[in-house]
């Protein structure tokens, strides 16, 4: 199917947004803390740059192969981003916050099972098997990513862990997009390619563009600086850390 003017507009805006966001992440050094997020932002830009010079040969097998690799990498990077968020939020001292890992693994496993079950049960109406498979794969990935990112958010709230500005912005944008992607893929799985297909895609892409703009602004800004710790408090906390081990041992007896 030949792309129309709206498709081209979204494509151009997506490319522009991706370039600006990637530039901000690289120039401001945010990629050090969020490598998976940076890779996720840069991947569509890279793919477009590879495919752009071959615009007229869009329907070749080569084009399809590149896109298959792209979608696989995109899915893996989304999962990596969820773990990146979990690492920043649920492992503030470099080790998992007590109970967070267990909760994350349990909820994540339940999420995988639920996504597999729903994807297996739902059979989208489509003219050929390849399209059915594609829609099922999209539904599975969006359900899984959505469940996992919500799991991170719930775990951090339950454990009283605050989100600093940058990770909060990434989490919010990613959650909004993941939820909308799940709704859109559910709509696709019900109506197939017959109704609302393009309209639903435009909604999802609009949300993604909005999220990109939000990320760009938030990641351009610096996080508010923390006040330095006094040497007295540093000594106290180290002493407390040691004392706590003893207290906990007593409590566990």
């Amino acid at each position, binding site marked *: 199917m030949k792309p129309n003017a709206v498709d081209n507009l979204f494509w151009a805006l997506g490319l522009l947004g991706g370039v600006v966001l990637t530039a901000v992440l690289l120039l401001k050094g945010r990629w050090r803390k969020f490598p998976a997020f940076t890779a996720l932002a840069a991947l569509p830009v890279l793919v477009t740059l590879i495919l752009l010079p071959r615009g007229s040969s869009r329907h070749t097998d080569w084009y399809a192969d590149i896109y298959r690799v792209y979608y696989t990498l995109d899915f893996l990077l989304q999962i990596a981003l969820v773990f990146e968020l979990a690492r920043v939020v649920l492992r*503030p*001292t470099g080790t998992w*916050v*007590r*109970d967070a890992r267990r909760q994350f693994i349990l909820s994540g496993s339940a999420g995988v099972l*639920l996504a597999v079950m*729903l994807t297996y*049960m*739902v*059979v989208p*109406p489509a003219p050929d098997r390849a399209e059915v498979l594609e829609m099922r794969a999209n539904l599975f990935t969006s*359900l899984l990513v*959505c*469940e996992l*990112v*919500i799991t991170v*958010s*719930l775990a*951090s*709230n339950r*454990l*009283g*862990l*605050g*989100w600093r500005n940058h990770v*909060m912005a990434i*989490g*919010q944008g990613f*959650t*909004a997009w*993941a*939820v909308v992607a*799940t*709704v859109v893929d*559910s709509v696709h*799985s*019900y109506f197939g390619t017959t109704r609302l297909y393009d309209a639903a895609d435009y909604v999802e892409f609009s949300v993604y563009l909005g999220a990109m703009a939000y990320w760009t602004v938030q990641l351009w800004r610096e996080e508010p600086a*923390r*006040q*330095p*710790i*006094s040497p*007295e*408090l*540093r000594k*106290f*906390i*180290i002493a*407390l*850390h040691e004392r*706590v081990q003893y*207290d*906990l041992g*007593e*409590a*566990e007896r």
Partner: protein
Amino acid sequence: MPVLPYALLTAVVGGLTVTAVRSQRSAIKLNNRSWSELVEELHFVDSRGLILVARDYLDPRKGQIDLQPEEIWTLLGGDQGLRTMLRNADRLIALAAFAQQWNLDESVIVAERMRRDGMRLRKAVRRVQIGMWSQVFTGRHWVEVPFQLQEAASSYYLMRQRLLALYETSHAGLYPQLAKAV
């Protein structure tokens, strides 16, 4: 087209959407709460009874088995007292986490230690509640209940002490208000 899979899918997607909105809202709320708001959210716990039970358990002395289960139950304020401790536990952790804005990662250690106490507190209260329900239905006393009561009291006491110690050192100005609240 079968209805059940799509009904299930709609329910799951609806649930995910509502949960996502709620969790993001509470994350924002958690980040925007002021120190005094957190302190105001603390409910009254009888510190005299708490200290008596917790010290009896953590710092055993002569006559260490003198405290009877009924007495422990009363000193801790019964079921209501346990529920208050559970509610307060999250706020105590939030108060410790609040200190992150002054002292980087180190206060995270204190918050993490308190979180461990909080887990122990939750576990103990859950077991007490199971024990009490079992007692209602079977008419038999659950021997574990008094031990779990002491466990709950000592966990809450440790959380309280850690928080007070942290603020006493880092924010002497805020300490009296906090000491009064907890």
